[in-house]
């Protein structure tokens, strides 16, 4: 497997009335061919901003990529003209959004919407593009694709719409697919169908997927590797099993423990859920030190002064926490 996408030391700032908000703070990520990378965290942690940066969709102004690089197979995306970026977007990298109703155009037939994307990026006739649209609908498991291609988004259920979105995103055979909370708006039974679909498509086409979610269950089900984000930092990363079975950062631990996970054999005892006190701080009000320190029950004086740098503790498992890394070096 070779490296497909690599994000290095990316810093994104938003100028707001309340001051400068650093929404991404020296983020480094890499994505191998055919891999599924999960990015988890609460809202406001920078998950979606990471996705938008890669897509070249940071609203500017107020947003701005201050420093760092995003390279796709050696091609630097941050310095690309908006015209060139448009050729890449939807073609080499594409994205599916959380809310399938608002991301499809309500006044166009779904077949036309998929065909449009094909026409923009490939030299094909309208007829060929339409044929591709029908083929994509069939691939994502929509019954009677030739008839359904003529349907409007409102005629489809939520699960069907999300399938259309996936078909649309995959129409030009992208190398990287970014899925931003693809199943949050869906029922569990439909979610399971979408997960199966994503897994099959990834296996068949070798597309690498970045899965953005707050649901540890979704990560467990799909992702090969996970990065946990907090207030614009990646605070822990590693293989899915490393992160879920052996989390090191107090935030990751809290994120896993605070959710009531479904158990197959529940006991009579029902302990209270573990809480992470407080909420994610506004990014304009980050002080010095570790961003998680005010909510962390293990915070030391050191944590409030200096920002911990993400460091490897094993081969692939990295953590940004003084308590963990100092324990290792000592």
């Amino acid at each position, binding site marked *: 497997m070779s490296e497909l996408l690599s994000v290095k030391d990316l810093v994104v700032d938003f100028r707001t009335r309340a001051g400068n908000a650093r929404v991404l703070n020296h983020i480094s990520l890499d994505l191998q061919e055919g891999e599924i990378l999960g990015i988890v965290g*609460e*809202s406001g942690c920078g998950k979606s901003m990471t996705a938008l940066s890669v897509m070249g969709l940071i609203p500017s102004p107020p947003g701005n990529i201050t420093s760092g690089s995003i390279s796709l197979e050696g091609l630097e995306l941050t310095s690309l003209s908006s015209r060139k970026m448009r050729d890449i977007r939807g073609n080499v990298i594409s994205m599916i959004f959380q809310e399938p109703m608002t991301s499809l155009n309500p006044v166009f037939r779904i077949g036309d919407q998929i065909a449009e994307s094909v026409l923009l990026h490939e030299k094909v006739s309208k007829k060929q593009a339409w044929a591709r649209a029908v083929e994509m609908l069939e691939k994502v498991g929509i019954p009677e694709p030739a008839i359904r291609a003529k349907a409007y988004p409102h005629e489809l*259920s*939520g*699960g*069907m719409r999300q399938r259309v979105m996936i078909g649309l995103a995959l129409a030009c055979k992208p190398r990287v697919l970014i899925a931003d909370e693809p199943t949050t708006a869906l*029922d*569990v*039974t*439909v*979610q*399971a*169908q979408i*997960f*199966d679909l994503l*897994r099959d498509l990834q296996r068949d086409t070798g597309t690498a997927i970045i899965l953005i979610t*707050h*649901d*540890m*269950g*979704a990560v*467990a*089900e799909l992702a090969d590797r996970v990065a946990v984000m907090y207030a614009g930092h990646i605070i822990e990363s590693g293989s899915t099993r490393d992160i*879920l*079975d052996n989390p090191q950062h107090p935030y990751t631990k*809290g*994120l*896993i423990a*605070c*959710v*009531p*996970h*479904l*158990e*197959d*054999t*529940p*006991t*009579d005892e*029902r302990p*209270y*859920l*573990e*809480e*992470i006190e407080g*909420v*994610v701080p506004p990014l304009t009000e980050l002080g010095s030190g570790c961003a998680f320190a005010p909510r962390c029950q293990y915070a030391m004086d050191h944590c409030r002064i200096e920002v911990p740098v993400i460091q490897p503790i094993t081969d692939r498992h990295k953590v940004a926490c003084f308590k963990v890394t100092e324990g290792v070096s000592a």
Partner: protein
Amino acid sequence: MTTEPLLEVKNLKVHFTKKKMFKEPTVVHAVDGVSFSIEKGKTLGIVGESGSGKTTTALAVLRLVPITDGEINLSGEKISHMEKDELRLARRHFQMIFQDPYSSLDPRCRVGDIVREPLDLMDIGDPDQRDQKVKDLFEQVGLRPELTNLFPHQFSGGQRQRVGLARALATEPDLIVCDEPVSALDVAVQAQILNVMRRLQEKMGLTYLFISHDLGVVQHLCDDVAVMYLGQVVEKADRKTLFTNPKHPYTKALLAAVPRVHANPDVAQRVALTGDPPSPINLPKGCRFAGRCPVALDKCATEPPALKDWGDGHLASCHLLEAN
């Protein structure tokens, strides 16, 4: 010893009729013959996919949608047949927490006034006592009492949901109906709210009717669980029985669809449900789940199964159980 249930719902039906010009009116069978009861101090969870009628059931219990047929009793009083003033006064005994903490609080009202409003409407205590009561309620739900003068937009989602909880508690109700109270919240905040709800229940002996699509949350919070599909309860049991020994194929599929964090997910074993639930307008003749059921018999397409007790109050409606 038999304890009198606090809430008893018998054969509840809510049908919405849509009149059409020159055509037969269409009838949406949102809730179609639902019965359950909750003992005082317990929590009943209702789970199901969207469109299964769980929210409509909650609204019907609150008398917020017209009831087509059936009976609802709260502490022996027949609230399903109350009218206007009688109903208005009875409302102090059953309150609600809503899903969206952003749209369920009036943006122009100070949060203290929002919590105080039920006390004013129900004419509980004198003005000084009401002020004190609002402060007490804020403390109970974990908000500082000096925040009463702020407006909803100055609060985070979790804090707003606490305000919603304080408002629901103001009239000291017996029953609180919670419609997806944590699904709009971030996971860390969700844990805080669920813990507050449990502490209040232990302290005040509250009874919850808890509507959710999140099976993990339901398993954590509820004593009994009812599974709804297309307007009907297809299975109901106590928490432990339902999750360890589900009987209905729909419940099994629902449980199998939830991603597990710790157990290694065995994808091959999952019974994936295909398709979506049928429309509640043209209901299938037989079992409503038959079209998506992986183990459906011939009989299922023609004859609706009855909800039967399979021992210790474990109810399920499936022909397959009778065949075995």
